[in-house]
């Protein structure tokens, strides 16, 4: 079930989600990381980062809030240890990169250039922009465009660059358009939604960082809507869909909305082998609907009713 993401071809369309798989090592205890389409690594920055104070997590209805603060070893240690481990275990790797200003994204990109272990860059632009009083890049058309343009110019031309967008904007298609114009090869949709919980015993915010990113099935309809809208406006750009995918039919919704691949994120915390289970369930679901290839299902729900053949037409995928 080959998945096609710009110039990158993956053996299947199920990936991990950034921040929900670390760098693959822990999940490899439960399944072979090479069996996935790719491992998407936790966003890496230039320097080692401590992350935020605890508490960093709060469970919410069908979801969770996290406020980790991108704790990580920095790009040099990541390349030496994590990326090398992923390559040695045959995993295809999408490296998620993050920065506080454009130069940091460029610096990380240059360090990854020429490294055969990297299959794609996913640019996490849901970070505060140090040069703009901490405003999140992904919430501003110009800042998003500037970072994506700079990464695209700095990256190895053969390496696909995907922009990971935030749903916390008025019109996500405007940000997507700006990133596309700046050279993005595709999109990862969506990052977490900003939320908060107040502990009614302490009567204070439950998270050390006050606010946190909401993930899990609670955000799935929002994520699906974003994939739908961006695919509608920019149908030629591949999308990795994510947000609360827990089973094969959840993944199928994203494919039908226009995603060419999916990432399984928060579900991993409850079920460490969720990515391989979702893959098997998605394959069965596509098969049951008569799709001979994944490509035939991508964006299928956008078709006009007369071109949508429905479950009783097994040749649905042929057209």
């Amino acid at each position: 079930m080959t998945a096609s993401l710009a110039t990158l071809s993956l053996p299947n369309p199920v990936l991990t989600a950034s921040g929900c798989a670390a760098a693959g090592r822990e999940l490899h205890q439960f399944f072979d990381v090479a069996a996935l389409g790719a491992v998407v690594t936790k966003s890496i920055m230039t320097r080692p980062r401590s992350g935020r104070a605890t508490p960093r997590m709060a469970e919410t209805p069908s979801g969770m809030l996290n406020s980790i603060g991108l704790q990580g070893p920095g790009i040099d240690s990541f390349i030496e240890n994590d990326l090398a481990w992923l390559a040695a275990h045959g995993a295809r790797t999408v490296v998620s990169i993050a920065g506080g200003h454009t130069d940091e994204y460029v610096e990380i990109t240059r360090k990854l250039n020429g490294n055969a272990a990297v299959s794609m860059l996913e640019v996490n632009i849901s970070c505060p922009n140090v040069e703009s009083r901490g405003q999140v890049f992904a919430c501003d058309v110009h800042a998003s465009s500037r970072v994506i343009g700079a990464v695209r110019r700095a990256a190895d031309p053969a390496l696909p660059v995907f922009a990971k967008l935030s749903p916390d904007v008025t019109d996500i298609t405007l940000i997507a358009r700006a990133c596309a114009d700046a050279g993005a090869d595709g999109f990862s949709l969506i990052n977490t939604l900003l939320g908060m919980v107040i502990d009614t015993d302490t009567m204070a915010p439950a998270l050390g960082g006050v606010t946190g990113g909401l993930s899990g099935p609670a955000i799935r309809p929002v994520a699906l809507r974003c994939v739908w809208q961006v695919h509608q406006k920019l149908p030629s750009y591949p999308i990795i869909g994510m947000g609360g995918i827990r089973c094969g039919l959840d993944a199928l919704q994203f494919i039908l909305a226009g995603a060419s691949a999916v990432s399984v994120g928060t579900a991993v915390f409850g079920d460490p082998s969720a990515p391989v289970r979702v893959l098997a369930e998605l394959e069965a679901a596509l098969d049951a609907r008569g799709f001979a290839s994944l490509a035939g299902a991508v964006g299928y729900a956008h078709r006009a009713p007369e071109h949508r053949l429905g479950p009783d037409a097994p040749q649905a995928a042929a057209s």
Partner: protein
Amino acid sequence: MSNPVQETAEIFAVARVGEYVQFTVVAPGVAAGFLPGHFVAVGVGGENTSMLLRRAFALYGATPSGQFAGTVQFIVAAHGPGTRWLLQRSAGETLDLVGPLGTPFPMPSGPAPAVLVGGGYGTAPLIPLANALLAAGSPVEMIVGASTASRLFGELVAKRTIGAVTVTTDDGSAGVHGRVTDVLPDAIRGVNAEVVYACGPMPMLRAVGDVARTHAIHAQVAVEEAMACGIGVCMTCVLPVRGDDGASRFLRSCVEGPVFDADRVRWADVGSLPDDLVGADAMAWH
């Protein structure tokens, strides 16, 4: 790593013990790799639950072979909706378990006198530890404490295992009126302890560490931190811990812990971000 497995485990028995409930479940893969200090992460709420995150419980015991082969035991207390769901389960139903998880208690290289200190149901992982220490020829003293008598756990099992146990309660409703640390110095001197092991609430672990330090011995303590995944992926359960190189980092209590050398944990900084932590300087605007 602890070579964890994910298993659908049938509940063999559910038994009330004071304010707690003891689960015995059939999980041969978890039982096979068990060492004292390991924990399990248990799914709650059933297949379509809105509670996505597993609940972590220290293992009270495991029986890899013989009668009841392949069973493990853990203790549950009612905290919130997830544990309340667990407490409504009965024998014959199944649970989704991941384990064994974490880094177990380090064992002395030879026979070494030890004092074990349990607070509330934190006594649970100390019972298999006591058995392992006794089997290695180490003299063991045990202190079991709680706020009140009904919150004690394991005092009878401890007495049967070791021969004697010192009980403390904050309100004096059982045993010595006071805290575990009030009787710890005598216990350390009595057995000429070379190491203290403890499991219980954070303030108790910190206090146990302080007493051990005044006696120039180490305290190995198992912490309870809120976890999302239990397997080292999510980075939510971190504590500030000083490393061999003298530098402090946020370490995951699910993988690098739950057992830490009490002297290495920066107790006063739990819940904050100390400036000298590795990578704290990179946290501007975050």
